[in-house]
């Protein structure tokens, strides 16, 4: 009997030990619904094969819902997520709050020095890298080569706003439903304000001066908004005040836009013959400038970060290192082709001769490199961010300002009225925030 009891105890101990050896850690990853992220979910067998003790659970949400969910969770220390997909707007703010785990200790083979300097700079706070870029993007001009040729014009590699207007006028053929230019008009800090803030940089406008005083009463902002209205009212599609990325993508793919200035990530969509009717007639150029040394393009990266509330930090780091590694890039290329590799994060990708064959690769790199989040516009500013201001108040303020500008585009008020309202509401919000 005593021997039986001992044997039973040994067996139980052995089972417990075996369970401990095979204990699985589950990490929950919050991510956005876009082609690159979904592709990653499909390739995670490679990661789980290398890390059989780590199980992955995905929470995929629409971008704005995700932003709200992860912000709420990280601020309340809910601990719902071990890895979060966040943008270059959140990283500096959350990093400064110590809400994110530093990734400076990722393995040497991950090669942090290979990350594009502009992207790395946007994800670093006081020397600490708080997020690993999964894909980066800028904005550029996508145009119809056939319409440009018909108009007898040739798109320069780095056009000016003057040329954009000339080309838009020449390509517009409203009787046949072709509009010279399609730009974002839908209100939102990540919608029309992303475009207009980047555009305003090229005219030397600033959101704030060095003393955090709003600058919508400046001549530069008036020039920016008047140029935008002139383009959209004369050569843009009807109902443009409700057009965002998707609406313009749809218009461009159906051959209704002569030019479209938007995210570089759109290049793979408009050149995809399955979805685009103009796939073989698309050219690319840098975003326009006004001769002041700054172009109207933005800089964004969807990046993977680990909240300090995670109880599986080491496992999360393993995943982040895998998903943002050079090996992952090679894995995507092997499975889906080079055109589907997440762009805009690593120097080595742009040195790869295979990737260089992708039609929009060089223009994407040049666009990213021409944006500087630490010096976004002509005059000095007290903030970082090209198409945003990296302060917590910005999203709310810019959405309100975006509504005023969108109302002006819809003809509900004048440019002067919109700018005056933007100046007042921004000043009030900043004062309330203690600036």
């Amino acid at each position, binding site marked *: 009997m005593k021997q039986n009891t001992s044997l039973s105890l040994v067996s139980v101990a052995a089972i417990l030990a075996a369970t401990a050896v095979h204990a699985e850690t589950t990490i929950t990853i919050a991510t956005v619904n876009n082609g690159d992220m*979904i592709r990653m979910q499909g390739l995670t067998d490679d990661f789980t094969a290398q890390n059989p003790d780590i199980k992955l659970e*995905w929470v995929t*949400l629409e971008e704005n*819902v995700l932003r709200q969910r992860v912000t*709420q969770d990280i601020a309340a220390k809910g601990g719902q997520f071990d890895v979060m997909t966040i943008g270059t707007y959140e990283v500096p703010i959350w990093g400064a709050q110590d809400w994110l785990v530093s990734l400076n200790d990722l393995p040497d083979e991950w090669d942090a020095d290979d990350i594009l300097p502009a992207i790395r700079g946007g994800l670093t706070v006081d020397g600490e890298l708080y997020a690993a870029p999964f894909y980066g993007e800028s904005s550029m001009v996508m145009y119809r080569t056939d319409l440009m040729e018909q108009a007898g014009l040739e798109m320069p590699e780095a056009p000016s706003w003057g040329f954009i207007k000339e080309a838009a006028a020449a390509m517009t053929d409203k009787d046949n439903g072709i509009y010279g230019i399609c730009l974002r008009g839908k209100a939102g800090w990540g919608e029309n304000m992303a475009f207009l803030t980047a555009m305003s940089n090229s005219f030397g406008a600033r959101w704030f001066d060095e003393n955090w005083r709003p600058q919508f009463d400046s001549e530069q902002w008036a020039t920016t908004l008047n140029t935008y209205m002139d383009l959209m009212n004369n050569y843009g599609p009807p109902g443009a005040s409700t057009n965002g990325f998707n609406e313009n993508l749809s218009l461009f793919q159906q051959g209704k836009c002569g030019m479209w200035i938007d995210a570089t990530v759109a290049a793979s969509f408009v050149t995809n013959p399955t979805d685009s009717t103009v796939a073989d007639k698309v050219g690319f150029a840098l975003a326009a400038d006004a001769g002041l040394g700054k172009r109207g393009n933005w800089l964004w990266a969807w990046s993977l970060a680990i909240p300090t509330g995670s109880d599986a930090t080491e496992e999360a780091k393993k995943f982040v290192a895998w998903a943002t590694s050079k090996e992952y890039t090679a894995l995507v290329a092997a499975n889906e082709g080079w055109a589907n590799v997440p762009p805009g994060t690593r120097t080595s990708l742009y040195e790869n001769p295979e990737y260089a064959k992708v039609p929009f690769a060089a223009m994407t790199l040049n666009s990213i490199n021409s944006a500087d989040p630490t010096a976004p516009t002509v005059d000095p500013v007290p903030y970082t961010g090209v198409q945003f201001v990296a302060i917590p108040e910005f999203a709310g303020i810019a959405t309100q300002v975006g509504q005023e500008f969108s109302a002006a585009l819809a003809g509900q008020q004048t440019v002067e009225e919109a700018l005056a309202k933007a100046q007042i509401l921004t000043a009030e919000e900043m004062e309330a925030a203690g600036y």
Partner: protein
Amino acid sequence: MARAVTTQRKIINTAAAWAVGLLIFFPILWTVLTSFKTEATAIADPPVFLFFDWTFENYKVVTERSDYARFLWNSIFIAGGSTLLGILVAVPAAWSMAFVPSRRTKDILLWMLSTKMLPAVGVLYPIYLLFIKMGLLDSRLGLTLVLMLINLPIIIWMLYTYFREIPGEILEAARMDGATLRSEILFVLIPLAVPGIASTLLLNFILAWNEAFWTLNLTAAKAAPLTAFIASYSSPEGLFYAKLSAASTMAIAPILILGWFSQKQLVRGLTFGAVK
């Protein structure tokens, strides 16, 4: 005396009812049709209505990418659980208000309804913190409780309306025959109010099934219901309307079928007491 209705009038009324019905149903029909299109056809201008190459590709992609059964089970558990729990709490409350009203009953009823007027986001943060403390985040139990509390005013109001239609004398007779309070409610009141309770159950099941604010904010990977399933296919940077439509169709199909088969009870329940 019933008013005579001419044939012409009947035709006009029927046509108007069909027109309104089709107008209301059109967005659902369009979603279902889009789910069988390619992404390119889904955004075609002018829009393509019926004559396109029908494809099941979107359903294939959606079922491969997402664990639909898990989302469905969570929806059934949360919607069913919150509705049943709500009925358990609401029956005694509605009985008390209908048959032994106090001076404050009407005020209490109005106060309960007033909680529905508060924007949900106003209490999001306190409830979120409470859920963290209680370990209820991303749990079916937590969500069941929250949805029960949210729908409770409506359940009580509906049951109160049905109970008031039942003559109090019947319950009084049961009491005189020696029925306890429990027996009175279980064996007299509930059997008499079955149609009303059934329509309350159905309506609240539908409300809980469609609830998208709390289900998105209090869940992550484990307890996420079909509302989160739909949200995972929405994207502001990429045209995935056909896949989004396929996901939406799969999410609404169970509740649509339930509603179709129970429409008589629903209409009867919703119009009960409306005409005296």
